[in-house]
């Protein structure tokens, strides 16, 4: 190749591509690809003296730092994303987004979303270099634009965001880049080459990105011949821009225990056909102040078991866990947590909490673990429907001799509309009755059972569907007046 040809070739190449992309294609090397443009140009000159020395000499004399001015439009490989002057604006967008929100985070994790058009220009540039530089190209395996972009952004982020960078960081920073002029017609054209019929992705929300998926573009590209590709991509290109920055805090978990002293308050909002039946719920009384304190967008409330609306939760309380979605804050010290409990407990006399604690994700499963095996203690006020016989009274007193009584419980009628029909085996570990000195028909029942035992049904028998029932044991008809949960025996929150 003579000098004139080399100059021409280089002119064309540097008109189409940024020097970083040239380097990526001709002699990829991590050390050099992360340098600035003039250093890369120097390196190229040294690496390919035989054809670049003369060619770049001309360009050099104009103004090396200003080399972009010669190019018409942006790079036909990276769409401007890998050019040094694109990186600082990216950081600025991120810093601006962070300053608009009050996130307090210890670690973060960036995620980059690059325009799908890069696939097409990637193929275009591969073919270009293979054709024009066959004389110098030994192995041709340029690293992905995204990988290089990540590496270029890394030191800029570390300097610009004064927080620890962590692959499992709690704040997810999503940077969405877009290339506007090729977003519609260009992609529609490429996409039309796809053999597969457009399939609707039902999971994708309506307002989300266009339907030009990576898979679809890749499959369409297989049907693009070289001249079509050349024609499509030989256009003037403006640089890419930052579309938007999304910030999302990974879930924060708060554990604790609650007591409920009301027989009219449900554990969770009680909705019938979308209509609220009761004013509030344990869940709302507890979660709303916590959600506010952590600045979360929303929450999920879960507990170890549950009690009916007319059952009180006494003793040491029931373990609960709140998952906070997109919290602005992930840490609370003991004083702040105590302050939040005071706030919850000050709302009314129906609900109180204690032992609030921020717990790790791995601790969360302990709440549901062994939910079935745990023992629960209850106290129930019961009555004989008819005045009890001496036989029933003596059986009442003998209840304390019972240990590990196996019950067969069919799904209770009161929940049969929303649960499958099944017969479950449950154990009553111990029972004791305390008679009421004022009324021979009334007695208090203390019992400890396997979790998941339906206590009300054990007492009244549920139309003979729980056997044996307390009535069976006493040879009498009995019913339950009031029920309290005395303890849920689970170590929670974890220490």
């Amino acid at each position: 190749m003579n000098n004139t040809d080399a100059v021409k070739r280089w002119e064309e190449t540097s008109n189409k591509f940024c020097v970083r992309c040239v380097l990526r294609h001709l002699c990829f090397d991590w050390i050099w690809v992360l340098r600035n443009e003039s250093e890369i140009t120097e390196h190229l000159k040294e690496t390919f003296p035989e054809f670049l020395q003369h060619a770049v000499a001309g360009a050099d004399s104009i103004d090396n730092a200003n080399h972009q001015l010669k190019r018409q439009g942006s790079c036909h490989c990276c769409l401007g994303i890998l050019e040094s002057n694109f990186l600082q604006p990216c950081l600025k967008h991120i810093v601006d987004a962070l300053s608009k929100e009050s996130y307090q985070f210890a670690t973060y994790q960036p995620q980059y979303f690059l325009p799908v058009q890069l696939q097409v220009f990637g193929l275009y540039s591969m073919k270009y270099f293979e054709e024009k530089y066959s004389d110098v190209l030994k192995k041709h395996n340029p690293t992905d634009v995204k990988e290089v972009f990540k590496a270029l952004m890394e030191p800029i982020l570390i300097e610009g965001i004064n927080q620890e960078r962590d692959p499992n960081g709690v704040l997810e920073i999503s940077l969405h880049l877009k290339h506007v002029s090729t977003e519609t017609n260009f992609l529609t054209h490429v996409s039309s080459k796809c053999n597969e019929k457009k399939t609707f992705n039902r999971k994708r929300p309506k307002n989300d990105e266009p339907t030009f998926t990576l898979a679809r573009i890749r499959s369409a590209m297989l049907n693009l011949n070289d001249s079509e590709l050349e024609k499509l991509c030989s256009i003037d290109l403006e640089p890419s821009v930052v579309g938007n920055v999304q910030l999302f805090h990974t879930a924060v978990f708060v554990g604790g225990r609650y007591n409920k002293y009301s027989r009219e308050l449900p554990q969770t909002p009680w909705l019938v056909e979308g209509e609220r039946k009761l004013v509030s719920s344990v869940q709302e009384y507890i979660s709303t102040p916590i959600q506010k304190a952590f600045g979360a967008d929303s929450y999920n409330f879960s507990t170890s078991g549950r009690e009916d609306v007319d059952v009180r939760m006494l003793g040491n309380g029931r373990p609960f866990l709140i998952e906070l979605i997109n919290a602005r804050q992930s840490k609370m010290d003991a004083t702040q947590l105590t302050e939040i409990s005071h706030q919850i407990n000050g709302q009314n006399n129906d609900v109180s909490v204690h032992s609030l604690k921020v717990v790790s994700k791995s601790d969360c499963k302990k709440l549901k673990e062994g939910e079935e095996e745990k023992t629960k203690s209850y106290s129930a006020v019961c009555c004989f429907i008819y005045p009890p016989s001496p036989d029933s009274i003596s059986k009442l007193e003998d209840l304390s001799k019972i240990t590990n009584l196996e019950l067969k419980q069919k799904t209770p009628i009161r929940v049969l509309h929303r649960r499958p029909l099944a017969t479950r085996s449950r154990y009553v570990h111990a029972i004791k009755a305390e008679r009421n000195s004022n009324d021979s028909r009334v007695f208090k029942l203390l019992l400890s059972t396997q979790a998941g035992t339906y206590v009300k049904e054990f007492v009244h028998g549920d139309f003979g569907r729980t056997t044996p029932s307390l009535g069976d044991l006493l040879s009498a008809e009995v019913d339950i007046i009031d029920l309290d949960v005395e303890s849920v025996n689970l170590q929670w929150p974890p220490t």
Partner: protein
Amino acid sequence: MTMDDQNKDNTAPVKSLPVLCHSVVERYFVRGYKVNLPKGGILSDFCEAKSNMNDVRILRHSNRICIVTMAPTHPALRPGTTITSVSFKVTDKLDRSNNVVSGKRKRGAQWLNPSSPLCIVTCDDGAQHTVFCGIRAKLVEMNERLLSKPKLLQSKTETEGYVAIVMPKLEEANHTMDGLLTAEDYLQYRLKQETLHSVSSDKSPPTSDSNNKI
């Protein structure tokens, strides 16, 4: 008359003691009655005409699940009559014992109309009576204990001696009780029928229900 009174059919024991708590049925269920099955009929039909007394009681839980029991007027519950056996095989081809349901929607359930037979009871006098469902619903569960203890139908008609548990379709759930006699209607019906039957028959009328405790 209070709501509670309207819901009773005078089969509950007279309570001389103060009421400690209402029974499970009274607390969570509403009673309704379908009479003269399988043909059925409304209250005004029975002012002059006699009913066949093949009557059922429907206990509707607030969650739409319904329990079908024999009504106190049912001929098999007449004093002096003893039920000796119960069969769930209602036709040559249809056996209610084969009902299997799965999932919370109770898939695979046998479908029941008001005139669908649930079981056949045989009495010590040799008489056989078919007990019908009385409403439109899916069959969830037959009371299997009746097979070994048929007398539960008499001794605990409204509780352990229930016949079947059924579940109306969700979209029909609010209308389950529409075509039924209320507890108050049923009292009127019962008084009228007792008169009609005692005039034309020597058989003791189906009045007393003292062994039919709730």
